[in-house]
C-alpha cells in the first residue's frame, strides 16, 4: 500500500504552522521587551476634557471602559508593575466622562489614602464627588470616617456624618456614627438629640437597644453636670 502525499497541501500546512510560530514568537518577544522595561510606564492617555468631547453620545459607556482600565492599572500596581503615576489622569478622565460615577470617587479615595498615603487627596476626591452627587450618603460618610479614624478630628467627623445622615439614601449607620462622633467631640447635648432621633427613626432591634442605652448613659452624665456643658467648636468642612 502506498501513501499518496499531496505536496501542495503539505506545503500550505507547513507555511501555516510557520506563520503561527512567527505570531507566537513575536508576542513572546513583545512580552519580554515589556518585562525588561522594568517599571517604566508607557500609558498614552488623552485628558478627560478631550475625552468628554470625543466620546459623543457614549460618555457613560466610555467612562465604564476607562473604569476597567483603571482597575487593571491598579491591579498592575498591586503586582508591582507600575507606581500609580497616572492615577490622577485616569480618575480625572473617568469622572469627567461620568461625574455621577459614585463608585469611582469612592474607590479612588480609598486608593489615595491606602496606597498613595495622602488623606487630603482622598478627601478632595470625595468632596469633588459630593459636588456632583450631593444626595449620596456614601461620600460624606467616607470623609467623616477619615476624620474620625485617622485624624481623630471628632468635630469635623461629626459634621460629615451628619451631612451623610441627611442624604436620602442614608441608613442607621450614618446616624449612629454622627451620634458617636458628637459624643466623642464632647458635645453631649447634640449627641443625645441624635441618639433620640435614631431611636425614633429605626426599626432595627439592635439599634433600638444601643440608642436606648446611649440615651440613658448620656442623660445620666448631663444630669450630674451643670446646665451649660462643654460644646464642640464650630468647624468648617
Amino acid at each position: 500500500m502506498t501513501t499518496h502525499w499531496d505536496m501542495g497541501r503539505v506545503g500550505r500546512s507547513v507555511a501555516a504552522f510557520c506563520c503561527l510560530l512567527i505570531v507566537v514568537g513575536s508576542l513572546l518577544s513583545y512580552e519580554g521587551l515589556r518585562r525588561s522595561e522594568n517599571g517604566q510606564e508607557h500609558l498614552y492617555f488623552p485628558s478627560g476634557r478631550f475625552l468628554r468631547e470625543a466620546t459623543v453620545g457614549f460618555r457613560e459607556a466610555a467612562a465604564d471602559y476607562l473604569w476597567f482600565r483603571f482597575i487593571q492599572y491598579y491591579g498592575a500596581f498591586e503586582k508591582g508593575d507600575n507606581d500609580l503615576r497616572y492615577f490622577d489622569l485616569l480618575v480625572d478622565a473617568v469622572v469627567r466622562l461620568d461625574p455621577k460615577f459614585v463608585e469611582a470617587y469612592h474607590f479612588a479615595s480609598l486608593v489615595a489614602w491606602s496606597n498613595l498615603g495622602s488623606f487630603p487627596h482622598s478627601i478632595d476626591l470625595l468632596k469633588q464627588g459630593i459636588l456632583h452627587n450631593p444626595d449620596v450618603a456614601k461620600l460624606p460618610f467616607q470623609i467623616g470616617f477619615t476624620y474620625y479614624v485617622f485624624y481623630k478630628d471628632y468635630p469635623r467627623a461629626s459634621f460629615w456624618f451628619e451631612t451623610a445622615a441627611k442624604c436620602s439614601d442614608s441608613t442607621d449607620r450614618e446616624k449612629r456614627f454622627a451620634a458617636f462622633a458628637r459624643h466623642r467631640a464632647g458635645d453631649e447635648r447634640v449627641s443625645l438629640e441624635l441618639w433620640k432621633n435614631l431611636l425614633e427613626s429605626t426599626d432595627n432591634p439592635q439599634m433600638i437597644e444601643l440608642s436606648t442605652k446611649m440615651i440613658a448613659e448620656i442623660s445620666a452624665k448631663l444630669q450630674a453636670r451643670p446646665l451649660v456643658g462643654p460644646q464642640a467648636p464650630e468647624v468648617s468642612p
Partner: protein
Amino acid sequence: MMGTLTTLAYGTFRETVRDRLFYLVGIFGFIMLASTAVLSPLTIGAQSKIMVDVGLAAMAAFGLLVVVLVGSNMIRKEMDKGTIVTILARPVGRRQYLIGKFLGLNLTLACMLALMGGLFSLVLLVAPGTFSPAYLGAIYMALLEMVVINAVVVLFSTCVSAPLAAVATLGVFLIGHLSQSIRDFGDMQGTPLQQKIFAGLYYLVPNLEVFNIRGAVVHGDPIALAQFGIATVYCLGYAALLVILAGAVFRGKGLR
C-alpha cells in the same frame, strides 16, 4: 397614497430582513450576557450601572450602524441597478418613494430596538434590583435620535455616493452631539455677526443631545415628561424638514 407608502415601507423592511440585519440583535444579546457574566464581577461595586450603560450604548451604536450602512445604500443601490425606474414607472411619485423608504427603515429600526429592548429588560429582570421603567424612555429616545439620523442619510443618499453619504451622516452625528459647543464657541466670538453665524449654525445642525438621557436614567435622575414631548416634536419636525428637502433634491435628479 397611504397604500403606496405602506407597500414601499413594508418592501424596505422585508429587504432588510432578507439582508439578515436582525443578526445584530443576536450580537446584542451576546454583549448583554457577556457584560453580565464576564464584566460584572470585575467592576467593583458598579455592576448594575455598567450593565445598563453597556446595554443602552450598544442599542444606540447598533441603531447608528444600521442607519448608516443600510440607509446610505438603500436608494443608491436601486438607482445603480436601475430598479428604481421600474418602481417609478408605476403611479408612484418620487417623493412618495423617498418617504416609503424612510418609513421602511424606521420600521426596521423600531423592530430592532424593540427586540433589543426586550432582551435588555429580560437580562436586567434576571439580575434583581436593576430594572427601571425609565430605561424604556431611554430606548424610545434612542429611536427618535435614529429617526433624525435616518432622515439625514436619506437626504445625503439622494445627492452623493453611498460611501460619501455614510461618512457625511457620521459627521452629522458627531456634530449633532457637539452642537452645544458650537453655541459656546459662538458666544466667545468678538463681533455680533460672528455670534449670529454660530447661533444660526447651532439651530441648523440637529441637536442630538436632546435625545440623550442615557446618563440620567442610569443614575436615577428624574426626567420631565415634557422632555419626551419636546424631543418627539423636535424629531418629527427635523426629520420632516430633511425628507422634504431630500424630496426636492430627488425630484430634480436625472435617473437612468
